[in-house]
C-alpha cells in the first residue's frame, strides 16, 4: 500500500509540486543563510585557522577576540619562555596599518608581524614566492584577495580601466615606509575583508604607528607530553596572562561576535522566516491534498484499511515530500557553495548546516502531516457512502 500512497502523492502533480517547492524553498534558504552565517563567523577567527603552529596563544587577559589587541611589553616573551614545559615561544604582531596605493589612495590593511628567526605564524599556503623571502629587504607577503583587488593597481588598457593585481616586486608604502612584495599567499578572508600583509616582527613594529608596547600575542609550542592545562594555569598565576589553545581562542572570538553583534539575530530571523513560510506552504498544500483525497482514503477505509495504515501512508507521503524537497534544496545550496568556493562570498557549510536544515524539514513535514492527521484519524468507513 506504500506504493499506492506514493502514486497518490506524485500523481497529484500541482499539489505535489507546491509541497516540494515549499520544502525546497525552506531548506535552500535555511541552508544558504546558515552557511553564510557560518562563513561570516568563521572569518572572525580566520587568522587563527591560518596559523596552526602554536599549542597556546598567550595574551593580555582582557582580550575578547582575535582582533581585540591589547599589546604587551616584549619582556613578557622571555617570561613565557621561562615557564616549565614551554618548548618555544615567539612574538606576533597584529594590527591595522594604512597602505598608500600608487594612485594616492589609502587602504587599511591587516599587518601581521611574525618571528624574524623562525617565521612561525606565517601563512600556510604560499601561491607565489616563499616564506623565507620575508628575510629580504623590506619584504612583505600579501594575500591573494587583497593583491587582486584592494591593493591592485588601476591601469588603462585599450581605453578601458583595468585592475592589475599586486605581484612580486611591486612596492607598497606602509605608514610612510617602503614594503616590497616578495610573495602572495592564500589566507582566510578577514571579517572586514581587508587585505592581509605579512612581514617579520621587527619590520612590522617599524611599520606600525609608534606605541610603547607592541607585542600582540605570544605563540607557544609545548614540549612533548607537557600538561597543557597546567602550563596555562602557570601562565595565568605566575604572569597574569591568559593562555588559550587555538580552538579555545576561536571559541572566545566567536562568542564575542555572537554576543555583541546583531549578526545571529539577523540570520536567525531569516532562518525562522524560511521555516515559517515552509510550514505555511507545505502545511496548506498537504492539508488541501488530504482533503482532495479524503474520499479515496475513505474508500480504502471501507475496504478494510485500518486508520493506522492510512496514517502510515500519510506519514510516508510527508516523508517523501520532505526528502525530495530537502534533497533538491540542499543540493542547490551545495551547488551554490561549490560555485562560490573561490569567491569573496562568506559561505561555509559544515555538516551541522545540512543537519539543521534536515531537522527543520522533518519538523515542517511533521507539522504539515499533523494538520491533516485528525482528518484521517477520525475517518469513519461509513463516510464513504456519503461522498
Amino acid at each position, binding site marked *: *500500500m506504500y506504493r499506492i500512497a506514493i502514486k497518490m502523492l506524485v500523481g497529484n502533480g500541482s499539489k505535489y509540486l507546491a509541497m516540494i517547492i515549499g520544502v525546497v524553498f525552506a531548506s535552500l534558504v535555511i541552508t544558504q543563510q546558515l552557511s553564510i552565517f557560518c562563513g561570516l563567523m568563521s572569518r572572525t577567527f580566520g587568522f587563527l585557522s591560518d596559523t596552526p603552529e602554536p599549542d597556546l596563544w598567550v595574551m593580555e587577559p582582557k582580550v575578547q577576540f582575535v582582533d581585540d589587541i591589547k599589546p604587551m611589553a616584549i619582556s613578557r616573551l622571555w617570561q613565557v619562555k621561562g615557564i616549565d614545559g614551554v618548548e618555544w615561544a615567539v612574538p606576533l604582531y597584529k594590527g591595522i596599518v594604512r597602505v598608500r596605493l600608487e594612485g594616492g589612495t589609502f587602504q587599511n590593511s591587516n599587518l601581521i608581524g611574525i618571528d624574524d628567526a623562525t617565521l612561525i605564524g606565517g601563512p600556510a599556503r604560499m601561491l607565489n614566492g616563499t616564506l623565507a623571502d620575508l628575510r629580504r629587504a623590506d619584504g612583505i607577503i600579501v594575500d591573494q584577495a587583497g593583491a587582486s583587488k584592494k591593493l591592485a593597481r588601476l591601469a588603462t588598457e585599450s581605453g578601458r580601466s583595468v585592475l592589475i593585481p599586486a605581484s612580486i616586486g611591486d612596492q607598497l608604502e606602509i605608514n610612510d615606509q617602503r614594503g616590497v612584495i616578495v610573495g602572495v599567499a592564500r589566507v582566510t578572508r578577514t571579517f572586514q575583508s581587508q587585505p592581509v600583509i605579512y612581514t617579520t616582527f621587527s619590520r612590522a613594529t617599524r611599520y606600525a604607528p609608534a606605541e610603547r608596547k607592541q607585542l600582540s600575542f605570544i605563540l607557544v609550542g609545548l614540549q612533548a607530553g607537557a600538561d597543557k592545562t597546567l602550563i596555562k594555569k602557570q601562565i595565568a598565576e605566575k604572569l597574569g596572562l591568559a593562555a588559550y589553545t587555538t580552538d579555545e581562542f576561536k571559541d572566545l572570538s566567536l562568542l564575542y561576535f555572537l554576543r555583541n553583534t546583531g549578526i545571529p539575530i539577523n540570520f536567525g530571523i531569516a532562518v525562522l522566516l524560511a521555516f515559517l513560510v515552509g510550514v505555511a506552504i507545505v502545511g496548506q498544500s498537504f492539508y488541501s491534498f488530504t482533503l482532495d483525497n479524503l474520499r479515496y482514503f475513505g474508500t480504502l477505509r471501507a475496504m478494510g484499511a485500518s486508520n493506522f495504515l492510512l496514517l502510515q501512508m500519510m506519514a510516508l507521503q510527508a516523508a517523501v515530500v520532505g526528502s525530495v524537497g530537502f534533497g533538491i534544496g540542499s543540493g542547490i545550496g551545495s551547488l551554490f557553495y561549490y560555485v562560490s568556493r573561490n569567491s569573496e562570498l562568506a559561505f561555509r557549510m559544515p555538516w551541522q548546516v545540512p543537519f539543521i536544515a534536515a531537522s527543520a524539514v522533518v519538523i515542517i513535514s511533521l507539522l504539515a502531516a499533523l494538520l491533516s492527521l485528525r482528518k484521517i484519524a477520525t475517518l469513519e468507513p*461509513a463516510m464513504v457512502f456519503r461522498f
Partner: protein
Amino acid sequence: MKFDTAVYCDQLRKEYRSAEQTVLALSGVNLTIAGGEILMLVGPSGCGKTTLISVIAGTLRSDGGSCNVFGEDLNRLSEEELDNFRKKDVGFVFQAYNLIPTLTASENVAIPLLLGGMDFYAACKRAEETLELVGLYEKRSVLPINLSGGQNQRVALARAIVHRPRLIVCDEPTSALDAETGQLVMEVICRLAKERSTTLIIVTHDNRIFHFADRIVKMNDGRIVE
C-alpha cells in the same frame, strides 16, 4: 438461522444523534438474505437504505438488534476484526466509482489484494485477469479520467470482486450511467455474482434494473415495508 443464510438482521436499530435532533435511520429492521441472492433495496431518499447496507457491510455499527453476516455477529467484532471482515468478505461498488484518479485501472483493482497483503506485481497480475472478466483488459494501464462512466463502473466492479468476497454491496451503481450502459454494467455484475455465488445487495432508485433482482425489498422510514 439457516446454513445458507448470508445476512440475518434482527430488530436492527440505528440512530444518528446531533445536538439539535436524533434521527432514527433504522427502526427494527428484520431481513434475511440467502447466499448467492441478488437483493435490491429500494425506497425514497432518507429511508435508511444506505444505513442498512453500511451496517451489513460492517462500515457502521448498529445501536440495537443484531446483524449476522456469514455467521458473524458484526456488533461483537472488534475494530480490527471488522476491518478484516470488510477486507476479506466484502466488495464495494459506489455510485461515483471512487476510483483513485492517479492509479491505473489495474492498480485500482489491485487495492483489495494489496490490503490483504499480496505482493504488488502479483496483485496487478490478478487485477488484470479480473479486468478481463469485465471486458476491460485493454484498458488496464489507463487512468480513470480517460475511461467512460460505464468503463469506470466496470473497473469499480472488478475491484469489488477481485478478492472473491462473499458479499458485494452496491450503492446506486447505475445512477451516473445512461440506460444502455447501466444495463450493461448490471449484466456484468449479476453474471459474475451468479457465477461465483456471491451475495449481492444493491441500493437503487433505478427501476430499469429491477428485473435483475431475485428479490426487491422496499424500505420506508427505517423499516422494511414490502
